């Protein structure tokens, strides 16, 4: 476990080197909320409620979804992993006592957590400065959403890991990542609340619903699915993906010659 803590520590040190970029990225995330406000005020017009949302609820939805969105987009480590497979540098995972899956999950987690924290600070300032545009949130409910967020982060990392491992078969997978990010944003409710897209019958068994939509709706107190059901569903998905990942990890070295692809 100590070596994985070390991996996270190294990732944070790297992130601090580029702290200005990370901080500015968080600062510019406010534009997403302004965009949501302008667009949705035009949609609401004189109406009070649209698909169960008031305007402050809708703006708060986008604010919260922006905070948790790094969980759906990965930390960029998948590209590095893919390059390592292509160049032959993947050998280090074979010869060293370190699991590629463990490395991937801990390094991705370290990269995801910093933007989430910075986004939270910036958005909290926005909420405190302009309370009239947002729904008042209860800190106790937000805390209950943290386990779901952590699990959904792991789920997202496992999907990224499986795509990275497909480099063993497909040499160039960069566009698969982009496509994955586009569709994950859509299916996880990052672009629009899922109830508007799929109706009230939310795809309860879809793993993507729990990456953004469910945690955000939970924080807003607008979901009927209990937190235990949510944790149960995500855990099942995580277990399935871990099994697939371990199977792929077992097969992969057989196709790998250590000199790159």
């Amino acid at each position, binding site marked *: 476990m100590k070596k994985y803590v070390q991996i996270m520590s190294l990732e944070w040190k790297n992130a601090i080197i580029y702290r200005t*970029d990370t901080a500015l990225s968080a600062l510019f995330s406010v534009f997403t909320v302004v965009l949501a406000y302008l667009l949705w005020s035009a*949609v609401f017009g004189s109406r009070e409620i649209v*698909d169960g949302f008031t305007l402050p609820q809708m703006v708060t939805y986008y604010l919260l979804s922006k905070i948790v969105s790094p969980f759906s987009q990965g930390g960029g480590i998948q590209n590095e992993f893919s390059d390592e497979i292509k160049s032959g540098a993947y050998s280090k995972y074979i010869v060293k006592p370190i699991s590629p899956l463990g490395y991937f999950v801990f390094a991705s987690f370290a990269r995801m957590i910093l933007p989430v924290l910075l986004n939270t600070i910036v958005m909290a300032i926005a909420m405190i400065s302009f309370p009239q545009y947002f729904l008042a949130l209860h800190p106790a409910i937000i805390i209950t959403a943290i386990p779901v967020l952590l699990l959904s982060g792991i789920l997202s990392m496992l999907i990224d890991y499986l795509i990275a491992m497909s480099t063993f078969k497909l040499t160039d997978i960069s*566009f698969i990542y982009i496509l994955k990010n*586009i569709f994950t944003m859509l299916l996880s409710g990052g672009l629009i609340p899922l109830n508007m897209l799929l109706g009230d019958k939310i795809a309860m068994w879809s793993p993507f619903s729990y990456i953004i939509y469910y945690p955000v709706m939970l924080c807003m107190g607008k979901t009927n699915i209990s937190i235990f059901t949510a944790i149960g569903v995500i855990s099942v998905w995580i277990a399935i993906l871990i099994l697939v990942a371990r199977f792929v990890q077992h097969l992969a070295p057989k196709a790998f010659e250590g000199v790159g692809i």
Partner: protein
Amino acid sequence: MKNIRHTFNVILTLAKMQVSKSMIYRYSFWGAFLCDTSMFLIQLLIFKVIAQDGHIGSWNVYHLTVFIGTYMALDGLYMATYFFGLIELPWKIRSGNLDLIIIKPVSTLFYAAFSSLNLGSILQFITGLIVVFYGAVKLHVFYVPHIIQFIIIFTLMYVLMFLLMLCIRCLSFWMTKINSFAMLEDTLIDFSFKLPSPAIRGGWRIVLFAVLPYGLMANMPSEAIFGEFSIRKWCLCIGVVAFFSLLAFVLWKFGRCHYDSASS
């Protein structure tokens, strides 16, 4: 004139070489097209979902279709031509690699901007135009005067995008890192291309139509094809392009004077 023809010939030769190169990586070529097209189709789907009574402000779904099509076409055209050349410019300035362009017997700016063509994006440009065509036919506004207006304003916006990108990259002549400006640019492009004109109100109209004119990009050509294009809008578009042409010219000229090769 001879110089322009010479530069054009060089760029054409580079384009031919890049087509051959992109055909080696066919999957990436089609993959990029698939990604871009999916992104725009999803945006269109979202507009259709959020336009509750079929409208966002005064625009209906077909107006929004034209808006998305214009965004797609503009994005495809600048990605195909100058985008990749201009985003490499800060690195070329910082590393001194601009020297290799300055010594070439072609226009430095045009070579730097147009030497990294990405012709795969032409497919996105064509798809965007087809989407615009579809929306315009459904709105019954597909008339020759509207199309001419659209082409002129679209060209102006293509030039404006070039000027805005160039202004930001020229800062590299004086600053070591311009990442924060590039990030602001990315945010504003994303912001403006998702915001149809009826949703831009109050002070935001001044910000997005004049100060940081990214809001004009897809909205103005769309309004031109709808036929709702007043003299005021013509003046706004031409005035903004003229102002940023002057600014880009000054920044490039002074930047070149300030450039001291590999040590800059």
